[in-house]
């Protein structure tokens, strides 16, 4: 895994535009500073701010039932909150959604409250059999296209993980 860069490599608005261009059309979540610029771009275009990450997955499930391709954005602290919804809603009902999860605590250098989840998140994603990639190691469009392919192929959640320094 590459070390977090101190210089942002991508514009949040470009990622939002890439998601739209790939056909994702319903956006909800709970904020994280690492994706503030992404959220700013999405807020201008129908993003629904939720109160909890599992409730955001509930919204995404309803949107998927209504034919949308949902994206749920969250900090990895909230990934912990969302696990029951992922396991007993999205996974078993075969409701796809793209998870954009920030990676606080990556590499063990962060505030104490982020260190445990920062360490175990990859293991949990794998244990839940959620295909995932670290965003920012390739061009944004390539990662979004990969996510859309997994979304269509599995009909289940897929994740793009966002370490510090990807977005301004």
């Amino acid at each position, binding site marked *: 895994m590459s070390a977090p860069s101190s210089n942002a490599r991508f514009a949040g608005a470009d990622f939002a535009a890439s998601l739209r261009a790939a056909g994702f059309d*319903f956006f909800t979540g709970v904020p994280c500073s690492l994706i503030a610029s992404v959220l700013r771009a999405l807020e201008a275009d129908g993003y629904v701010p939720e*109160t909890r990450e*599992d409730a955001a997955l509930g*919204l995404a*499930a*309803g*949107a998927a*039932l209504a*034919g949308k391709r949902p994206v749920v954005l969250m900090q990895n602290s909230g990934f912990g909150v969302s696990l029951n919804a992922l396991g007993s*809603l999205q996974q078993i009902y075969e409701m796809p959604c793209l998870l954009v999860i920030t990676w606080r605590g990556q590499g063990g250098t962060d505030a104490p409250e982020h260190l445990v989840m920062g360490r175990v998140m990859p293991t949990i994603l794998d244990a839940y059999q959620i295909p995932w990639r670290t965003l920012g190691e390739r061009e944004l469009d390539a990662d979004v296209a990969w996510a859309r392919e997994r979304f269509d192929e599995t009909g289940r959640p897929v994740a793009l993980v966002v370490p510090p320094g990807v977005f301004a």
Partner: protein
Amino acid sequence: MTTKLTTEAAVRAILPPLSGHALVCANGFLSRWACALGDRPECFYMIGSMGLASSIGLGIALAKPEQPVAVLDGDGNVLMNLGSLPMIAVAAPRRFVHVVVDNGVYASTGNQPTISGRVALEEIAAASGYRRVERVRDASAIERELAAFAAADGPGFLLVETEPESGAPAPRIPFTPEEMTARMRGALASRR
């Protein structure tokens, strides 16, 4: 004082006025009664993710604003996801009805008490900003209030007081989860 309704009697009264709605049913005995008494393709039954029925209903309403949406919820479910009440009130879907069957217990785990006997959930809904809120305890009041809800802008919140389950529960949901997803998606695909 009249006797409270059973879950079965409450669901029997609730379903007919909501026959034009996409219906999301909370996990537990409520889904099982709704499936036994009024199954149709626009009904979605939860078997897990307790608390999220109202969020799923809101997701449908946000994605399809013209589609009437109803949520058949329980007191334990509402208490588990209270943040959903202000979410729904703020989004203010006009054709959204939230019906809460309040039996005061977690029925499917053995009737352990919830705290709904000591906190009026409909008052939380009203404070959150639901446009219309009522508490009822008999079948004719359910019918009357759901007719009134249909004639006014939502979101509406109807709390129905019931007795905890004492007889046999309804049979388990006969569909697999992925079958329920497929048929709900199919049923909603042709609608705006």
